[in-house]
Each structure stands twice: as structure tokens, then as C-alpha cells.
């Protein structure tokens, strides 16, 4: 089922910092099915594009149009950062936080948080202070905190960048389940294996521009641009 937020139209969108263009102009069209994976070298603007779509980076030119009001769109989105940001609270209180913001009572919010802690494999750590978790556990917590509001769109900025194989497998399992439920994932990654496993469509970025936007199978088997071909071959693309 495609969320009422889609299709998303991005038209000549760009963002600048101190007069220098970081990303853009970008034109694209997302239909909101499955997972969109953004790949590209360091500094190509993947993170900026994600936060631009999410609405936390200032749009200096162009438009980003969801099918609902900006406010409703923001309420149906969540963002998982590359380095998880943890509140100085217990694991359960961290996961419950977005619900508390929405006015859910403490007991009900904590009950849901404990369910989610269980689901992402943090069930026996619910009372631990969050900053004491390991890297993988912290990212699982961030994921549970993002998913507890049942978002239509989940942005993930290199969610597995610093994680080992097992933590990555756990997190990809959760993401696959969400995808199957109809949540649209938009994630950036460096890991080509992960991109192949999760992607339904691929956005390849280079130098702040979208160089290629194609279905995953097409992109990985027959990339249409020389930069994408070079990137997939493991050459250094700048």
C-alpha cells in the first residue's frame, strides 16, 4: 500500500551554505513503493539530500511537494541518523519519547516502548541508561524510536556505517519487515551489498547532483552513466 504522502515531486531543489551550493538543482519523482537507496561517494550530498527531503535543511530554491501539507508530511516521517542521538534517559524512555511528545500518557507510551524494545532485540535492556549501550544496540534503539510512531516514510542516513555484520543483519531484518508493511524507506549507504539487498530503486549522487535514478535491477546490471559504472566497479569517483 502506498502512503497518501506520495508521489513526491522535487523540482529544481537546491540548498546552499554561505553562498556555496551544497546540493542541487535536483529534479526527481518518488512513487513511494519499496525502498529508495541513495548511493555515491563521500561528500556527494547524500545526507544533505535526505535532510532536504525530510525538511530539516533549508530549501533555498525550487520546491519539494508531498501530496499532503508539509506539517502532515513531517508528522508521518522519521529520521535515523548515522551517529545515533540518544537522550540521557533509559532505553525505554528513549523509545517512548516521540509518543510522549504526541501526548500519549507515560504508562501507555512505556508499554509500547517495551514492545518495541523487545522487537528490536533490546528487551532485556529496557531499564539501562541508553548512552551505555554498544554501537549496534544504540542504532537499534534509534530505529525503534523512529518506528514507534508508525511512520509512512523512514529516512536512514547510513544506518549501518559503523556496525559489524551481525548488527547489520539484525537491522536489515527490521527494515525488511517495515518495507513489507508498506513503510517507504529512503536510505543512504556506502555498502553496495546492503544497497543490493534493500533497494527497489537507486539514486546515484555525485557532486551534489543526481546522476542516475533507476530501478535497482537496471542500475546494478546496466548502469546508464559512466560515473555510476566506475563507482560500481570500485573506481574512485569524484
Amino acid at each position, binding site marked *: 500500500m502506498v502512503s497518501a504522502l506520495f508521489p513526491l515531486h522535487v523540482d529544481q531543489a537546491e540548498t546552499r551554505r554561505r553562498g556555496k551550493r551544497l546540493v542541487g538543482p535536483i529534479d526527481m519523482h518518488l512513487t513511494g513503493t519499496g525502498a529508495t537507496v541513495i548511493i555515491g561517494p563521500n561528500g556527494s550530498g547524500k545526507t544533505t539530500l535526505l535532510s532536504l527531503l525530510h525538511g530539516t535543511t533549508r530549501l533555498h530554491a525550487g520546491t519539494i511537494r508531498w501530496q499532503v501539507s508539509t506539517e502532515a508530511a513531517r508528522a508521518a516521517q522519521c*529520521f535515523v541518523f548515522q551517529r545515533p542521538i540518544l537522550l540521557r534517559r533509559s532505553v525505554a524512555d528513549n523509545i517512548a519519547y516521540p509518543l510522549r511528545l504526541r501526548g500519549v500518557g507515560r504508562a501507555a507510551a512505556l508499554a509500547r516502548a517495551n514492545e518495541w524494545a523487545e522487537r528490536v532485540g533490546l528487551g532485556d535492556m529496557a531499564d539501562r541508561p541508553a548512552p551505555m549501550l554498544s554501537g549496534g544496540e544504540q542504532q537499534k534503539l534509534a530505529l525503534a524510536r523512529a518506528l514507534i510512531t508508525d511512520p509512512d516514510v523512514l529516512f536512514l542516513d547510513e544506518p549501518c556505517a559503523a556496525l559489524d555484520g551481525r548488527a547489520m543483519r539484525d537491522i536489515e531484518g527490521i527494515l525488511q519487515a517495515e518495507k513489507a508493511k508498506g513503510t517507504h524507506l529512503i536510505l543512504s549507504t556506502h555498502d553496495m551489498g546492503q544497497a543490493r539487498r534493500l533497494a527497489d530503486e537507486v539514486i546515484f549522487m555525485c557532486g551534489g547532483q543526481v546522476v542516475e535514478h533507476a530501478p535497482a535491477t537496471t542500475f546494478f546490471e546496466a548502469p546508464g552513466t559512466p560515473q555510476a559504472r566506475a563507482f560500481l566497479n570500485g573506481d574512485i569517483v569524484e
Partner: protein
Amino acid sequence: MVDLWDGLVQAAWLVLSLDAELADIALRSLYVTLTALLIACAIAFPLAAFLAVRRFRWRRTVIAILNALMGLPPVVVGLVVYVLLSRSGPFGVLGLLFTPTAMIIAQVLILVPLIASIAHQSLRDLWQEYHDLLISLNVTQTQKMRTLLWDARRALLTAALAGFGRGIGEVGAIMIVGGNIDNVTRVLTTAIALETGKGAFALALALGFVLIGLTIVVNLTIHWLGQTEREGRW
């Protein structure tokens, strides 16, 4: 050296014999400073949170002034409050001069900038840490401030303790607005000043040791209640 020793002995004696006058002025010291501290915290914490999250034109100036006011000379604060509360002053009709309330007002003025400055430092750091997440979650200004204040509670405790230390040991302002009247506005610090002036060094020292002891006890109690310095806590 003999004076110091006499002071210690006399302090022990005053405490052990539960001296009524000592208890009276020690309790008044606590009452004035703790009340002032409570009011000052209620003003300073939200102010610090506001300054940490809100961007407005004169923000940096306000913070700089607040930091400068940390060193506000108590005597001057006392003088200003005295003028405001004196019979001919704008608040003269309230008849507050030479009462514990006047002392509390003066101490609140001294404590607010100090507590707000220290609290602001830690709230600002925490805000930097939380910024991206809270912006992404679309929190309102009030929710932002509440989250920061709650998660920085231990740092705020430190700010409050610094305020307590300044308040309980302060003599300039409360001497002026309180008047050091026996049984009404005499507190430990003003009593020490008086006894020193009279040449009763041993008694003055004894009161001084009681004051230090009191400060330590209050600090330990608050630390114990707040469970600071435990593993994995903030």
C-alpha cells in the same frame, strides 16, 4: 592558633549543647538562603533553557550581561534593594525593609544570574547534542525546553549548589537590607561579622565552623538525594 582552637571547642560545645540562639540563627540562615535559592532556580532554569534554544537578536548580548552579572557585588545589590524598599522608595509602603523577606529578595537578585549562567552552559552543550533529533521530531519550543531541563537535571543540581554556596556565605547584601537585628534578621554570616567587630574571636570562629559544617551537610544531603556520581547516571 589558640583562637582557632578555642573556636573549634566552642563550636563543638554550641552544637552539642543545642544552643537555642545558635539554632535560631542557623535555621534563619537556612530559611533565607533556601527560599531565595528555590525562587532563583524557578526563574533561572527556564531562562537558561530559553537562552539555549531560542535565537533572537540580542541573545548574545543578554548572555554576556548575564555572565557579567555573576560577579555582581552583593553590597551594591543590598544598597539598591535598600533604596527600593526604604520608606521613601517605590516599595516603601510594603514595609519590607529589615525583614527576612527583604533578605530573600536581595539574595534572589544575586543568585539568578549565577545559576542561570552555569545552567545555560550545560543546557547549551546538551542542546548541541540533541539539536538534530529534536528538530527532526518537530518538537515545540516548550517541549524542547522541558526535554533539556529534565535531561540536564544533574547539571542543574550543580548550578543550584553553586547558588546555595554563594547565598549561605553572603553577608554584604543581607547585612544592609536585614540590619542584623537580634531574633529577627540575624543570620550566621551577620552574626560572625558582629562578633568579630566586638572582638569575640572565639565565638565568631565557632559560628564560622558551624556555617561551614552546615554547608557541607546540605551539599551532601542534596548529592545523596540526587544520586549523583553513580555509575551510568547523569
